[in-house]
C-alpha cells in the first residue's frame, strides 16, 4: 500500500475505494444551521459524502461554505443540525446533534475523524517541516516516534519535499508550505480530508503543484470535501459539486452538470462571473 493510501481503519479488509460509492455515506450532515446574532450564515444544510468521493463546495464569499467545512472539524459550532460519521469498522457511528448540548469530548471525537488543510497553511512556525508533520501522530495519537518519522518522510517525499524535512516553514514557498499542510493532515490518517480554499493564498504559478497533489489524493481514493474557487479543478476532481449562496444550498449534482449546465440562475451568474475574472 502506498504511504498516502487512505487509512484502512475505517474498514479493514476492504481495498481502498476508488470512486465506487458505498451504500452508506461516511459523512452525513442534516439540517445544519448557524447564525451570528440576526445574521444567518447557514440554513438547513444537508450533505452526504461517500467513501472515496470528493465533494466540492463552491459559492461567493460569505455564502457559508467555509463555515460548513469548519463545522465538520469542530472549528465552528453550529446552532442546530446533526453531523454523523459512519464507522464501518466497528459499526458504531459518531453522531453529534448540535441542537442538544455538545461536550468538549464530542468535539474531540469529531476532530479525530477529519483533518483540515487551511487557506493560509497555518503551519507551526517554530517547528521544522518534519516536526510539523509528526506533532499530531506523536503528541496526540501517541504513536511511536520512529514509525511516525518514517511515515512522515515517505509522505514528504511523495509531495516532492523530501529534502525539506529540516527546514522551517519561513524558508519554503507558499506552494511548498501548503504541501506540508497537506502532509500534516495526511499523517493523521483521517477518514475525511477537508480543504479550505487551499490555493487561494498562493501565487498563480504555484497553484498547479498543490492542485496536482490534491488530484493524486482523489485518484488514490481519499474522501475529501474541498472549498474552492477553482472551477476547472472542481470539475476534474469532484464527484459532486455543491453551490451555496446566502447560507443555503442553491444547487447540487455531478460536477459536470452543475458546472457546465447549471439549472439555477444564481449558479449560472456565479459561474459566469468567476469565469470572467480569469
Amino acid at each position, binding site marked *: 500500500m502506498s504511504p498516502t493510501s487512505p487509512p484502512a481503519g475505517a474498514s479493514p479488509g476492504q481495498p481502498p475505494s476508488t470512486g465506487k460509492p458505498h451504500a452508506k455515506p461516511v459523512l452525513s450532515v442534516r439540517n445544519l444551521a448557524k447564525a451570528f446574532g440576526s445574521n444567518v450564515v447557514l440554513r438547513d444544510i444537508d450533505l452526504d459524502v461517500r467513501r472515496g468521493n470528493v465533494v466540492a463546495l463552491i459559492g461567493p464569499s460569505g455564502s457559508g461554505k467555509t463555515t460548513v467545512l469548519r463545522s465538520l472539524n469542530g472549528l465552528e459550532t453550529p446552532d442546530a443540525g446533526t453531523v454523523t460519521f459512519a464507522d464501518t469498522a466497528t459499526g458504531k457511528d459518531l453522531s453529534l446533534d448540535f441542537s442538544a448540548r455538545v461536550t468538549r469530548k464530542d468535539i474531540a471525537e469529531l*476532530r479525530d475523524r477529519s483533518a*483540515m488543510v487551511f487557506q493560509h497553511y497555518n503551519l*507551526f512556525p517554530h*517547528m521544522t517541516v518534519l516536526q510539523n508533520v509528526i506533532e499530531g501522530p506523536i503528541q496526540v495519537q501517541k504513536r511511536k516516534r520512529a514509525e511516525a518519522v518514517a511515515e512522515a518522510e515517505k509522505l514528504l517525499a511523495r509531495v516532492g519535499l523530501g529534502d525539506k524535512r529540516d527546514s522551517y516553514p519561513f524558508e519554503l514557498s507558499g506552494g511548498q508550505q501548503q504541501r506540508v499542510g497537506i502532509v500534516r493532515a495526511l499523517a493523521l490518517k483521517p477518514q475525511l480530508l477537508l480543504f479550505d480554499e487551499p490555493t487561494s493564498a498562493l501565487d498563480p504559478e504555484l497553484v498547479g503543484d498543490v492542485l496536482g497533489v490534491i488530484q493524486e489524493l482523489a485518484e488514490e481514493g481519499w474522501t475529501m470535501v474541498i472549498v474552492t474557487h477553482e472551477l476547472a479543478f472542481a470539475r476534474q476532481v469532484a464527484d459532486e459539486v455543491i453551490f451555496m449562496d446566502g447560507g443555503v444550498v442553491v444547487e447540487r449534482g455531478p460536477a459536470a452538470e452543475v458546472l457546465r449546465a447549471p439549472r439555477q440562475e444564481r449558479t449560472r451568474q456565479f459561474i459566469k462571473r468567476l469565469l470572467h475574472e480569469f
Partner: protein
Amino acid sequence: MPLNWDLVWSSFGPLISGAVTGTIPLTLASFALGLALALLVALMRLSRNAVLSGAARFYVSVIRGTPLLVQLFVIFYGLPTIGVKLDPWPSAIIAFSLNVGGYAAEIIRAAILSVPKGQWEAGHTIGMSRGQSLRRIILPQAARVSVPPLSNTFISLVKDTSLASLILVTELFRNAQQIAAFSQEFMVLYLEAALVYWVICLALSSGQSALEKRLDRYVAH
C-alpha cells in the same frame, strides 16, 4: 580632597559579595516565582470565567497602581501587626514576586494574544486539546515575542532589589550604605554601587540578545 584609593579598592569586595549573596539570588528567586505567577494570572485573565478574569484584573491593577516600596513595607512592617511575621528575605521575595507577577502577566497575556488564531485552529485540527495547543503551539511562539519586554522587567527587578535594603536584607546597596556611613565617603560608595548594578545589567542585556537570537531562528529576516 584626595581620593581614598584604598577605600575604593577594599570596598569593592563587600559590594560584590552583597551582589552575589543578596542581589542576584533575590532577583533570580523573585523572577522565577513571579514568572510562574504571571503565567497563571495571564491565563486567568484570558479565561472566559468572569470570576477568574476579574480576580486577575484586580490583582494586576493593585500591583501596578501602588508603589513597590509600599508593597514591601506592607508585607514586612504591616503584616506583623495582624500576626503574620516574616523575616526580611521571605518578605522581600514575596513582595518582588508579586510585583513581577503583575507586570509580567500583562506581557504574557499580550504575547499569547499576538499568536494568530489560526495556530490554535491548527493545533485543534491535529487533535490537540486547548491545554496541549497552549503548551506545544502557542506558548513557544509567545515566548519569542515576550523576551524583550520580560527582559525589561528582569533588569528593572535587579535594580528594584536595592529597596530590600530598607527591610534589612543584606544585599549590594545595604553594604554600600553601611560602608558609606562608616567612612563618610558617600560619593565613592554610591558610585561604586551604581557601577556594580550597571555591570550586572550589561551582562543581562547580552544574555537577552543571545536568547532573542536563538528564538528568532525560525523567523524570516
